[in-house]
């Protein structure tokens, strides 16, 4: 599904190489986790895949079901099935959460040549999905993420994911700023979306999120590359021994 080959990326503003040849394939139905120390390039990878400005791809490719992602605008990537759950969801004063969700859902349907969702159908769907994430009516009415707690923001990301039904979900440190209960709620939301047709790329610092969202494959990223790939046991190894041993081993 998601195929990244030899991806080299540098910052547009300064001549600094962040990704130095990332190779990664995420198959449909699988959950891949990326762990790694600070500054290893994990977040950059998520931004480059979703199309954020400020990065130059100098070499390599990234495709989703064979389509070249790097040639697409962010909104085209979204319509093609990429979804990024932000580490820091953005507050947008003046735009109602519900309006935002409905605009996004219908923009994607329109881009794919599908019929737009009627107001009634949308409302029904969003209410049902919000309920399972314990998002109340008030949160739906309020401006996007404005005045939301850390946990509410992350739940709101998962709600968007649930409504947009992407093919490839990229989650950038979704566990940051969450207490145990909020993390469980978020994980349940994610697990409910696990599906044969959908891939997940979960970026995290800590193993604890992976207790709740069980990965099929775990990658360790360091200095702009995937340096080691293994099963869920790799995450436990990191949790117990830190990155030092693994990094020493691959160097």
């Amino acid at each position, binding site marked *: 599904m998601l195929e990244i080959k030899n991806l080299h990326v540098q910052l547009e503003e300064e001549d600094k190489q962040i990704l130095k040849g990332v190779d990664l394939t995420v198959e449909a139905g699988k959950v891949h986790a990326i762990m790694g120390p600070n500054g290893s390039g994990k977040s950059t990878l998520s931004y480059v895949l*979703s*199309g*954020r*400005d400020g990065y130059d791809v100098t070499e390599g490719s990234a495709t989703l079901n064979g389509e070249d992602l790097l040639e697409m*605008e*962010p*909104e085209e*990537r*979204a*319509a093609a099935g990429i*979804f*990024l759950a*932000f580490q820091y*969801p*953005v507050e*947008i*004063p*003046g*735009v109602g959460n519900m*309006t*935002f969700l409905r*605009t*996004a*859902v219908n*923009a*994607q349907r329109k*881009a794919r040549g599908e019929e737009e969702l009627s107001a009634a159908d949308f409302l029904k769907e969003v209410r049902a999905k919000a309920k399972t994430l314990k998002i109340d009516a008030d949160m739906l009415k309020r*401006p996007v993420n404005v005045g939301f707690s850390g946990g509410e923001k992350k739940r709101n990301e998962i709600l*968007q994911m649930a409504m*947009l039904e992407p093919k490839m979900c990229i989650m950038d440190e979704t566990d940051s700023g969450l207490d145990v209960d909020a993390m469980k709620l978020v994980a349940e939301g994610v697990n409910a979306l696990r599906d044969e047709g959908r891939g997940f790329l979960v970026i995290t610092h800590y193993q604890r999120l992976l207790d709740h969202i069980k990965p099929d494959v775990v990658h360790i990223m360091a200095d702009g590359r995937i340096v080691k790939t293994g099963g869920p046991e790799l995450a436990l190894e990191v949790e117990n021994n830190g990155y030092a041993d693994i990094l020493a081993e691959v160097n």
Partner: protein
Amino acid sequence: MALPEVKQSATEARLSALTMPDAGCTRAAREDALARVLETGLPGRRDEYWKYTQPDTLVSPDAIPAAVFSDDEPLMFSELDRLSIVFVDGVFNAEESDDLTMEGVTIDRLEDICCKDIHWAKDLYGVLETRGQSPVQRPLAALNTAFASDGVAIHVTGKPTKPINLIYRHASPTSDAILHHVVRVESGAEATILETGPAASRFNKCTEIDIADKGTLHHVRAQGRDHERRAATHMFTRLGTESVYKSFTLTVNGVLTRNEQIVELTGDDAVAHVAGACVGDGDFHHDDTVFVTHDAVNCESRQVFKKVLRNGATGVFQGKILVKQGAQKTDGYQISQSLLLDDDSQFLAKPELEIYADDVACSHGSTSGAIDETALFYLRSRGVPTKDATNMLTLAFLAEAVDEIEDSALAEEIVSRLEGWLARRS
């Protein structure tokens, strides 16, 4: 002191093109106003108060012709149940207007007042305008008082069920209208006044509003989309104890618009909110000049002005809160912000606070910026195309000003017009 020669001759040239109407009971006020114009002269380029806005075309003897704008959408508030008062090129049109009788309010034409020797409006006409000439001179308002050829006197004595809609229609490409309205809201009375439509090629409008104790006036105005108009408007409002004044102006297009709001809180516990949202593209110049004076205890004032500017458009905000000695427990707030959609547009702001009381809470803020790139990316990453995302963020930017309108139906109509404007330009 003699006026500078340039100003003297410009003022004389303008005055020579005007005739004072047969004035009846407003004669004294008109002659007094004329004397003030002669004394101060009309605004010139070198006046500090006109530093950001060129007054030349507003004071020239003749109006610059403006094409009559034909709109493809109905005039705002057309769907509302309202009492319509129509002015065509600044002249009251009885045929297009409704019957002016309504419970809770008496409405007279300025012309009818001028024929009378005694009328309540006599005690208001030119009075608030005169008060508003200090500490800053407003010669265009004095000119208006002296030469206004039409207008209405609205006396609110109860709670009329329908809003009063002053509807302006532009018919002649050379029209040059001077209108003067006076509004008196009696104690405990409440009304809504709406203003809509392109008035004339050049429009000088002055409104004096006197709100008695516990009176309430809502004012919602929509200017546009006639692009070629040149307008200078003044609204002078005096508030009594526990009275409320809420005014919102939407401005869409316009080669030159200067809206002045002069508000005086003279009774304790009064509330005054003035707000505006404007959108301009290209050869657009919009100036909001606001002067709020707190002269009583425990009053609240809010100024919320938002401007969206593109393709070289210019926005101006000059806003002042003056808190007089003894006006304790004043709560004054002022925000002026512009959203510049490109590098060619500019926003010129002069926020001022002048406070002579020691127990007050006053704040002001002024910002100028582009679309928030992070928010734009967030929306796009959810599949919203750049154009739609930009429009969403633009409307969101204006929302704080639109939110000042209490009536949700009016606010929705304002928002839909803004959406239309954005859609046409995307």
